Structures are given as C-alpha cells and as structure tokens.
C-alpha cells in the first residue's frame, strides 16, 4: 500500500522539487565558471518547460559567457517574446543587440513608447481584444435592437480597431521569421552557393529576416542595414 502511495506522490514530488534543485545546480555551475555544464543543465530543463522565459534567459547568459553572442541573442529574444515586461531580459537583450550594432528600440522611438508597445504579451493582447470585441458586440446588438447605446458602441468599435491593429502588428512581428548570425562571421552572398560572390561579412549577433530557403542556404535581409543576400544555414540560429 505504501508503495502505491509513494508511486502516486513521486511524480508530484519530482515536479515540485526537482526543477528547483536542477536550477540551483546549474546556477552553481555558472558561478563556478562552468558555463558549458550549466548550459547543458538548463537545456535539459527546457525539455520539460519549453515556454519558460527564465530558462531561455539563463541559456542566453551561458552562451554569452561562453563567447557566443549570436546564440545568446537568439535565446534572449525568445525570452523577450515570452516575457516582454521583464526588465532583466530587456536589459540583456538590449545589451547584446547593441554590442552587435543592432538596436532593440528603433532609432527615434521613445523608450517609453517601445515599452508600452511591448507591455503585453501577444496572448494577453489577444485576450484584451476579445474582451473589447465582446463589449462592442453587446453594445452593437443593443443599438440594433433598441437604438440605444449607439455612442458607446462607436467608442467600443474605435477601441476595438485600435486594439486589433496593435494585436495584428505584434502578431506579425511574432510570425516574422527571424534569425541571428550565430557563427563568428557569416558571408552574405548574392546567390545560394559559394560560387556566387560574397557581398558582405556579417558579424555574429546581427538580426536577420528570413525570406527564402534553398538547400542549405537562406535568403535574408540584414535588419540593421537593409542588405539582402544568401547565408549558409549553419551560420544562423533561427528564433
């Protein structure tokens, strides 16, 4: 009987306590400068918690300390998408992007506005849009049936359109296929092959927008420069 009880509670015990212990062990490795070992531990945890922004953040830290700024940026970006309000994630992402000549906040845009734009996750924004849609539908129904509350229906419609645009914009950013240059340098060529001339060298950490793919080559646009070209797939880390 005891065995049955133990077998029932063991998974619960593991779920509750093992992740915390693993996190502590990984942190200890990180503090001792064993970044590769810490990275392995965090990546193991990621298999069980695939949408945890803190794990992506910690993996990014490990990669950064191991000298791979490109992979660090990719993981900070993943964390930022999951938890855009987290100040630490924003700080580290901005720092590594800045070091690679990229910017988290577009030039000319107030930081406050950028923070406001990313104050909600895409899912939260979707939920808010649903709520306003619900309110609008109710008010529009009242107006249709009773010719009342027309003004409020209009106001809710305006808010709905605003939120809808916001959500659509954020969703398009989320769906935008992004990649980071992970190799120390990548060669940007005019075609998908080494027989095409290289037009630029792109250092690691640069943000790329993926456009097309052929064999082991990806057509990309370097976001900060607006230059288009082809880069070998193994030089990239897709976000």
């Amino acid at each position, binding site marked *: 009987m005891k065995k049955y009880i133990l077998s029932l509670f063991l998974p619960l015990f593991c779920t509750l306590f093992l992740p915390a212990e693993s996190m502590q062990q990984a942190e200890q490795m990180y503090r001792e400068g064993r970044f590769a070992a810490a990275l392995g531990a965090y990546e193991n945890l990621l298999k069980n918690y695939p949408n945890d922004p803190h794990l992506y953040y910690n993996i990014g830290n490990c990669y950064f300390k191991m000298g791979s700024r490109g992979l660090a940026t990719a993981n900070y970006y993943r964390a930022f998408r999951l938890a855009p309000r987290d100040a630490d994630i924003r700080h*580290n992402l901005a720092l*590594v992007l800045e070091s690679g*000549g990229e910017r988290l906040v577009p030039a000319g845009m107030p930081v406050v506005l950028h923070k406001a734009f990313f104050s909600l996750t895409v*899912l939260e924004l979707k939920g808010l849009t649903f*709520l306003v*849609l619900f309110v609008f539908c109710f008010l529009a129904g009242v107006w*249709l049936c009773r*010719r009342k509350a027309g003004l409020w229906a209009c106001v809710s419609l305006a808010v709905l359109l605003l939120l809808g645009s916001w959500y659509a914009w954020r969703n398009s950013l989320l769906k935008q296929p992004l990649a980071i240059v992970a*190799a120390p340098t990548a060669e940007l060529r005019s075609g998908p092959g080494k027989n095409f001339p290289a037009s630029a060298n792109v250092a690691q950490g640069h943000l790329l927008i993926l456009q097309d793919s052929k064999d082991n080559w990806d057509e990309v646009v370097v976001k900060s420069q607006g230059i288009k070209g082809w880069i070998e797939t193994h030089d990239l880390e897709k976000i």
Partner: protein
Amino acid sequence: MRKLFLLFVYLWMCLLPAQAALDLNGVSITASIDKAAITLEDELMLTVTIDGAAGDIAPQLPSMPAFNVYQRSFVQQTNNFHIITTFQYVLLPRFPGKTTIGPITLEYGRKTYKTDPISVTVYRSAQQPAQANTQAQGMVDTSIPSSLRETQTQKFAQAPADMPTLEKNLYNRAARLGNKEYFMVAAVSNAAPYINQTVTLAVRFYYARPFMGTAPYTAPAINNLFMEEIGRSEGRQIIDGKTYIYTEIRYAVSAVTKGPANIGPASIKYVPETRVNLSMFDKMFASMGQEPQTVQSNSISLQAKEVPSLNRPKSFYGAVGRGYTVSAAIDRDEVEAGDAINLTVKINGNGNLKPTSDLKLPAMAGFKTYDVVATSGVVPSNGELKSYKIFKTVLVPSASGKYTIPALPWSFFDPMLREYRTIYTEPINVTVTPSTQADAGFDFSSQQDLGNGFRQLGKDILYLKSTLSTNKDSFLAKIGGMNWLAYLALAFLILCGIFALTDKKTWAQKHALAKAKAQLKNAYHEDVISDALSTYLQVRYHVHTASLPLRDIVSELKQHGCPAILVSRFEMLWQKLNAARFAPVDIQGEGTHELAAQALELINDMEKGGQK
C-alpha cells in the same frame, strides 16, 4: 695587347706536347668485369679505365667470338689536368664454357698499353651454380617468371599462361616482330578498365644491334586518358635465338570518362650502327650524314566502363583502386571560440587520386566549416603509381566546450572485388575555451565619470534567474486562449443583425405601440390621448410633437414617409384634441372615449401604412 694575346697562345701550344710527354709517364689501362661466372641468360659488364691519357683515345677490344659486344657508356673526367676515361661494354654470352677476354690495348703516344686477360665461365641454365644464379637474377627483369627463361631459348612460342597480362602481351607482340633488328611494342595491363582505374602501359624498344648516338623518343598521344610516367628500365629477351636488348618506359594511365580511349603509337628515331670497332671519335661523327630511321609501337584501344551505381556510398569521390589509407589531423587541439583550427585530411594509396572529387565535409555540431582546398601528387614507385591527395580546411568553433570532429568517411571502388569499400579517419577531440577577445563595439572597459562619486567601469549582462518563471497565465492571456469567446460575440452580433433586418419594427417601436394602445384604452382625459399619440409618433416617425406647431408636425410626418391621408386624419384629430384641451366649450359633442378610439384607429392605420 693583341701581340700579348698571340704570345700567350703560342706559349700554351708549345707547352701542350710537353704536358703530354709528362702525362705519358702516368698512363695506364685496366679492365674489369662485374662477375666471373654467368649463365647464358645473363649479361656481363666490362669496364675499361684509362688513366692519364688525353685527346681522342679508344681502347682496342680483342676478338671475342663467345660474346656479342655492345658499348654502353663513355665517361671522361678531368681533375687538375689528370684525365680518367671509362668505357663500359655489355657482353652477352653466346656459348657456354670457359672463355677468356684477351688483353685490351691502347695506342697512345707511340706506346701500346695492355690490360691483363680476364677469364669468364659461362654456364648453361641447368649448370648454373647457386651463386651465379643469384647474381643473374639481379641483372634481368625479375618480373619475368622462371618458366619464361626456358622458353626464351626455344623458337617463338606463345607466352606461358602464368605470366602477368602485361608481360604476356609484350612478349607475344615482341615475338611476332622478332625478325626485325629494331622494333617497338606497347601493351597495357587491362584493356577494359573502370573510370579512374590505373592501368599500366609499357612501351619497349627492342634492338638486336647497337645504334649510333642517342635515339630521340616520342611518347604516345592519348585520348580520354590521364597518363603519368612511372619508370624506365632495361632488359634482354631472346626471340627466335636472337638476343635483343630492350629499353622499357612504363606509364600509369587512367580513363577520364566512360567509353573508348586510345593510346597512339610511341616512336623512336635512331641511326643504326653499320660498322664495328669504331673509336669514340669515329662514333661521334659516324652518324652524321646518315638518315635516321623511325620505329613505332602499335596503337592500343581501351574501353572504359563506369563503376556500378548500386550501393554506391555518398562518400565515394571517384577513386578506383586498392590499398588506400586515410588520416586526419588538426594543428592544435585547444582553441578559443571563434579561432580557426586547420584540419588536414590525407589520402594515400595506389592509383591516381588526382582526378577524384574533393572531399565534402559533413556539418559538424559546434563548428563553422569551409570548403576544402585540395592538393594532389603522384609518386612513381617500383613501376607502380602511388599518389596522395591532401585536403585542407578551416574549422571555426562557435562556442566553448569539448567537441569531437567525427570520423570522416572516404570510399573507393575495389576493381578486384568489384565492390565499394569505406575507410574512416580517427575522431579528433577539440577543447574550445571561451573567447578572450572582446567584440568590436562592446566596451567593457569604458570609464565614464557620472559625477557624485560614481564611475561606470563597464557593462555586463545581468545575473541568472534562480527560479523558473512563476508568472502563470494572466487573466487576459487566459481570455486570449479562448477563441470561442470571439466567435460567441460575433454570433451574438450576427443574431442581432438578423433580428433587426427581418423585423423592421424595433423593440422600442413595439414597446411604444403597446404603451400607446394601453394609454388610449384607459384614456380619461384628452391630455393622455395627446401624450400617447406624441410618444408613438416620436418612436415611430421620430417626430417630436411637443415643441412644434401643427403645421411643422404635419410637414415632418410627410417627410418621414407617413401617408398623406393619415397625415390629414392626424391633423384633424390633433385639432380636435387641442380644441378639447384648450376650448372644451366648443367641442362638437365628441367625448374623450371617442377621441381615444379615433386615435387608436389612426395608430393602427399608421402601423399598417408603415408596413406597406
């Protein structure tokens, strides 16, 4: 000046005989042979050395009926006015038995110099003593099996079955042409090779008599083939009782593409020696004025075939042969992230690796790889073609850690076994340490004095998160996950729209009608009738009766689509109601109930009129 020069020349010419006279005292001639006992199949090297004689000198060989004599070389060396001249002759025995090479004489300065006689024993093959046999094997082509020696003494016969293909082909071709003094033959080891398979081509120039001077050689022209010379040798073959010396040149050839490949004739121009016992001086000029003759070898056609496509591995780059080895090495096994490692992969083996494709490195986890740069070469070795191919590339590790360069496969086709074989390099471990080089534009050492005793020393990333994210899905996120909510809201809106479209009377209108009817049924005063009518008109036609004179109300009703007859009835009723309300004395006998009934009838007609 000119006189001085002429005097110097005169003195030098006078001194020459004096020097020659001095030299006479030191002139000597010696003769030696390389072995004292030989067999009929062997050849004997006779070396005659003349020490101290200058000018046009030539030793006089004695009559040697037991040998065929060929001069091989003539070398004259001068060291501090001391001249040593060496003549070498090849003696081919004709009869078995004990024979003597008589004294070799030199006429020089009115004196005759002689060597001592030399005794030589010539054995038949069967009589060949063990020592002589051993020495003889070192002088002839060891690739010829012992059975050939026996057939050589016979008249022409087919080559023995156990002879290698190339030797057999050469033997048979030479045997057919054995009635000529000079001829050339060519043969290959395999006439139907695979693409890139190395085939040995041998070209032999046979001569039964010596030739004058040098004989220029022209290599065969080739088509659809790759050819490398792999060695030269000399040998002897007895054909139809006649002894031939041959010079052989071997090539390694390999087909480039599938289909026919041709080897054209090789040729040699020579001047046959017609006189014997010529001095060196005579030999130098004897060929002048004689027309050189040309001999050509036969042409050879090959039919190259493709290696089988069945079970062809991905790591096959075109090598066909045997005995290949592959190895890999790196220039250092500990690097920083971002630094380059030079990887060298070397392949050695028989056959020609030059035309094979370049090695393609697989994707290696943790490394950025580049295309390989290949170099190749051939090394002729003991009549075989050995070659090597070296691939060099650079690997750049992306991040620190311990990595392994995996075993790299390389395949070749074994033409003997007719199957593919794959060999691998050894895996190599590499330790990558974190990069110590700061990235450009990333300033960790900036020292900005921000005032108030605060100096910024640099920037770094923030520390780890010690726990997993505790942020559960917020209320909004949960709503965002409920897609059905949006559909529900839209469905509600659509229903409302349908409701509004199918019934033109709104709920408010219905409510207003019901309210008006209820008021009119229970009307006790004209004001109530007026109110009920006003409320109805306001909802039904959006006409506000309270603030408008009758004329404007009528106009508004017409504008809002009320039928003219109903408008006139309303006008009459409204006047009656006004009269009853404001001048009850003048009322024409109609009571409140009757007015209410008229108003109710008007409303009902308006409802009907509105529906039309």
